[in-house]
């Protein structure tokens, strides 16, 4: 998109209006992406600011490769910053072995998955997953990272990433089923 390229050029030159347009165009997407990983909004906003500073630093080196490339590049930056933030906070991004997981129960639940929940409810359920599960699920499903990339990013093995995704999937399904069947829903696992 030519407008996007033009906007980038003007931002590099330091045009104040272009900066505001740039921010208004991409901040909502980036903040949304960040909130998938970080629980509180104030933390996400801090990360957003840091991300924009980093984006400005690297914008002259960004090579425009077509529509979607800029957003993909910025999403990558904010996801990395969010993961760094979680690491600094001492959150364990690797397998959380303490989570109770019953294979048999989940096998049964998987077969009954339906789509009667609203996107907000599903989003809420995802955000209530343990940090490790949530991170891998977000990276894999929404950011389209491969297991090898997730492993490199989180410093774990590929099989670790796969098993964590499997468990996240099962736990999410279970919670969805509970919510759908109007049972009393208690978020067991902390953020």
């Amino acid at each position, binding site marked *: 998109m030519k407008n996007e390229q033009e906007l980038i050029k003007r931002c590099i030159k330091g045009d104040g209006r272009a900066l505001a347009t740039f921010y208004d165009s991409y901040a909502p997407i980036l903040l949304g992406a960040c*909130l998938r990983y970080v629980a509180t909004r104030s933390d996400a906003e801090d990360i957003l600011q840091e991300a924009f500073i980093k984006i400005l*630093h690297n914008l002259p080196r960004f090579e425009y490769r077509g529509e979607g490339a800029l957003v993909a590049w910025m999403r990558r930056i904010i996801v990395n910053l969010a993961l760094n933030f979680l690491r600094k906070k001492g959150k364990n991004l690797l397998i959380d072995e303490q989570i109770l997981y019953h294979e048999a129960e989940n096998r049964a639940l998987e077969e009954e998955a339906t789509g009667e929940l609203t996107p907000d409810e599903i989003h809420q359920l995802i955000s209530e997953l343990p940090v490790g599960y949530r991170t891998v699920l977000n990276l894999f499903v929404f950011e*389209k990272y491969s297991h090898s990339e997730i492993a490199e990013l989180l410093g774990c093995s590929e099989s670790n990433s796969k098993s964590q995704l499997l468990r996240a999937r099962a736990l999410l399904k279970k919670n969805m089923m509970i919510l759908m069947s109007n049972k009393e829903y208690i978020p067991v696992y902390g953020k």
Partner: protein
Amino acid sequence: MENKDSFFDFLDGTVGPVIVRPGEETRRKHLEAMEKEMIRLRRIRYRNRGLGVLGALLIASIFMVIFLKGGIETSTERHGVNSSELSQLNPVRGEKGVQPASLSTPENGMESNVRSNSDNHETGESGPDISDPSTTKLVVGESSGKIVRKMESTNISRTDIPSGRIDMIHPLQMKPSTHFILGSELGSSQIRPVPDVIVSGISDMEQEERKGVSRKKLRLPGFSFGLNYTPEYMFNTLDQTDKLVHNTGLEIAWRKGPFTLRTGLSLSVATGVTELAYHFNENLGVMQKLDSVVFVFDANGRKIVPSWFFSDQQVFDTAEDVSVSRIRKRYMYLQIPLILGYDFLEMERISFGLRAGPVLQILTSTRQLDNEPDYQNNRIIRINQLTPGRLTTHWQALFGLNVSVILSRRLSLEAEPHVKYYFNSVYEKAATTGKPWSIELRTALIYKF
């Protein structure tokens, strides 16, 4: 996509990208921070440009200083005497040189004139007082059976002599068997008659040889300046097609005896292919999306008439496609070598030596040579660069054999086959099993100050 299943597709399709608008206060705070950062970045850019210009000026002034210094020293060395020595060569007047000095043997009409080119020689301000017997004495020698007189200066060091230049003039009446060489050319400050003739108009090299100067004198110590071109062929690189690198630059060398020390600045131009994996959703076309319906009551027809409002919406395949593109890039490096050399064989016009030393290479610019692939209306999800990026700084070790051919007293040609080993890879990640290395041939034209 590995392990992709219907549940994940369902999640991706249902939840989709989350859009959360920052609050007004947050927006203001963030924009302020961004503007401050932009100002800071602009300052850094200006500062870096300024430093670059200053660096270039500094290098240029160093070159100029070295060049000027070299020029003056050379002038003094070649002619061996200057205006202060000239003032001492006036035994008749016994005072500071008021006019061009002249040594004469009136008995046989032989005359050797020494004329100063310096502008202030007539003022007689340069040089020590020759009337002082402690510094100057008259020496009498024999030439062609006749008595000649000359001045011998004993206590004047080279540093006492201000710069200047004189020409030796061989008069027509001078007998061919007699002339004077000013002593400083022979390492002392004496004037001696020698059985040879200095004939004006012959080449410098011939003059040197006729004066009996050693052939090794052709390789004078001091600074030299050179232009070089070096084609380089690399091994152990990722790219199997673009292995040829072109280097060209300016160099300055200092020589003492058989040893040389060389440095300079070179530009190195290399090309390489970068592989990029594009992950995208294919565009399936455009659908008409119903935005709204407006119902208007038609009083005449007594019915409700709906108006449908549509908008175009791009439709993308949910399957993720991957396409790998190869894009050629040109990398420009700045090279700073520091090469130590030793010449083990010096013949009349040719010498052989060894060269070795480190080379610092800095990536200064990257330019894309190919156009981006056109993905038209497809939605790019992400782009992975498969080829690792290039390091901005790396070190190399260079070993080579130098062959130098002397063209004239000041000009020489050098050919130097090298082997270069890269201490660290040129890539950001260890992309190859071994470190890169290369062979190259440096060709240089050298000018001696």
